[in-house]
């Protein structure tokens, strides 16, 4: 089912949680709502579910306004941040709940319910814990039970609020790959809320970056990472170093180094440059006039990449990442002079 969000606003007391948000979600998409806390992403999710009511605007399911549809009739599966499993029911009863509360004429027989619940338990690979209670399960297991419970009623949309938020790093990684595969099997329109950019980049088909109740950018993981629409998105998705450059006659300078920025306007006076740590090239000798002279402050070779903190002649501090192979070849040490060129850069120019 496709979802259309049209001009939705929501205010709590004086806090503007959502400010005229428009968004289209295609059928079968796995979409991440990404943003810092307070950006309105959970509110948007809850409004789509009907758990909150928007002050203004519409939510259309398959082109149809949902205003008059109660939560219980919306056919949305909602997975809560803290799972909200019914604590007095077994895992089996939790999953069966949605089937049991259906009106009599729509309700499956007990045998059919049993079969269906066991099918779901197999699907989430937890067939052996049906008779346990939620408190006897690990966080990852609870998460999957919550998902199975939401899926039992065959929702048209699946909404997940910070699905991995309260899990350990290890379990989190496993579960998000699992969610990705799971979605590939079921192809149900799904939205999940997260504040973890890595999670969004890894799992989602499309990412919606939110900030202060507005949408900053909507795009594929590749688009938002490599073509950030603005500074906020750039900053929020991954580490980024910032430089302040002078612009003279359409050419940008960082100290003595001339940075080659195509299409700089003649009238620009300054520019903000954003460079991700892996977009630097480090050498012992200057490559050309565009190389920036810097000193290595600290070097951290532990991990898949080597992180090097640098200070340029002009006093800018920044962090670069090089591969272990490059590091083995160049053998930088603390205090070494290093020449830095920018392989790739995102910039904004100003006439002041």
């Amino acid at each position, binding site marked *: 089912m496709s979802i259309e969000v049209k001009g939705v606003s929501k205010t709590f007391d004086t806090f503007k949680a959502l400010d005229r948000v428009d968004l289209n979600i295609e059928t079968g998409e796995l979409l991440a709502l990404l943003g810092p806390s307070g950006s309105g992403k959970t509110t948007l999710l809850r409004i789509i579910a009907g758990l909150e009511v928007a002050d203004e605007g519409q939510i259309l399911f398959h082109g149809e306004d949902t205003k008059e549809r109660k939560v219980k009739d919306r056919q949305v599966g909602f997975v809560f941040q803290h799972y*909200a499993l019914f604590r007095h029911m077994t895992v089996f009863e939790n999953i069966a709940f949605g089937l049991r*509360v259906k009106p009599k004429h729509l309700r499956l027989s007990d045998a059919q319910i049993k079969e269906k619940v066991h099918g779901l338990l197999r699907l989430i690979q937890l067939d052996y814990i049906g008779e346990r209670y939620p408190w006897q399960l690990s966080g990852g297991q609870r998460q999957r039970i919550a998902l199975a419970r939401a899926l039992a009623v065959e929702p048209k949309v699946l909404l997940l609020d910070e699905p991995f938020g309260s899990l350990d790093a290890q379990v989190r990684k496993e579960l998000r790959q699992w969610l990705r595969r799971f979605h590939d099997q079921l192809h149900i329109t799904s939205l999940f809320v997260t504040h973890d950019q890595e999670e969004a980049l890894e799992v989602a088909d499309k990412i919606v970056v939110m900030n202060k109740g507005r949408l900053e950018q909507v795009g594929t993981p590749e688009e938002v990472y490599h073509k950030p629409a603005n500074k906020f998105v750039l900053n929020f998705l991954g580490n980024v170093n910032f430089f302040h450059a002078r612009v003279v006659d359409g050419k940008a300078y960082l100290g003595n180094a001339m940075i080659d920025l195509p299409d700089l306007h003649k009238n620009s006076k300054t520019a903000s440059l954003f460079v991700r740590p892996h977009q630097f090239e480090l050498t012992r000798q200057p490559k050309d006039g565009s190389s920036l002279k810097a000193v290595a402050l600290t070097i951290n070779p532990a991990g898949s990449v080597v992180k090097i903190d640098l200070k340029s002649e002009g006093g800018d501090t920044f962090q670069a990442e090089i591969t272990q192979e490059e590091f083995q070849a160049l053998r930088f040490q603390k205090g070494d002079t290093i020449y830095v060129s920018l392989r790739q850069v995102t910039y904004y120019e100003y006439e002041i």
Partner: protein
Amino acid sequence: MSQSRQEPTIIRRILITIALWYIGFFLVLPLMIVFASALHQGVGVYLSSLHDPMTLAAIRLTLLTAVVAVPLNLFFGIAASWAIVKFDFRGKNLLLTLIDLPLSVSPVISGLIYVLLFGAHGAWGPWLKAHGIQIIFTPAAIILTTLFVTFPLVARELIPMMKTLGNDEEEAAITLGAGGFKTFWYVTLPNIKWGLLYGVLLCNARAMGEFGAVSVVSGHIRGLTNTLPLHIEILYNEYQFTAAFAAASLLVFLALVTLVAKSLIELKFKAEQMPLLKGK
């Protein structure tokens, strides 16, 4: 407990001893004297004094009062806690204060307000009299004042409990297609059942034991408007001490049952809810 949180042994012993003596003197002695006085003349006299028709009538009225008052206040308690905990609205704090109000009103004044309302010289007295309706000095007045004094007892137990439990499970239930009643019945009620039960017990104990408020509106008509506590007063004032204490022993028994049930419920609640709350 770590060393830094312990007093020296001798201080601990002294404190425990004082605490136990104080409790023994002020709480245990009164408890013991009721049974001692009731059984003073032997079990036979004790039992026969309970079989007195007036005592039996008082017991019947006390039970009737509780049977009417407790379910009404239980129903109110559920509605009030649902409205207060599950929703946000302006005036909520005022509502909470008003619900607790009867606890701050002297029992005597609780009775007085009903006399001022329904009494012969009361606000609606003349109208009631003209229509041949008598409320004061009837069981109806006793039930009304009991409703007043036990009014907040169930709600007070439920509200904090439901607050700790939060709204998540109810929200989950409605996204799964459950309506209001099913959500309450299958999700909320099982979670609050122990708190509910304790509220009912407290409400019941107070309903059966209320004295001051009921005394004002009862008229003390033997066999008709005497509840058990009022009957005890009459027996005592007539120097029928054994009979008075025999009747009193029933209420002490009720109090003890309430306390035991409270302790059991607390244990049960801890055992059932603690791992769940922790596991959240």
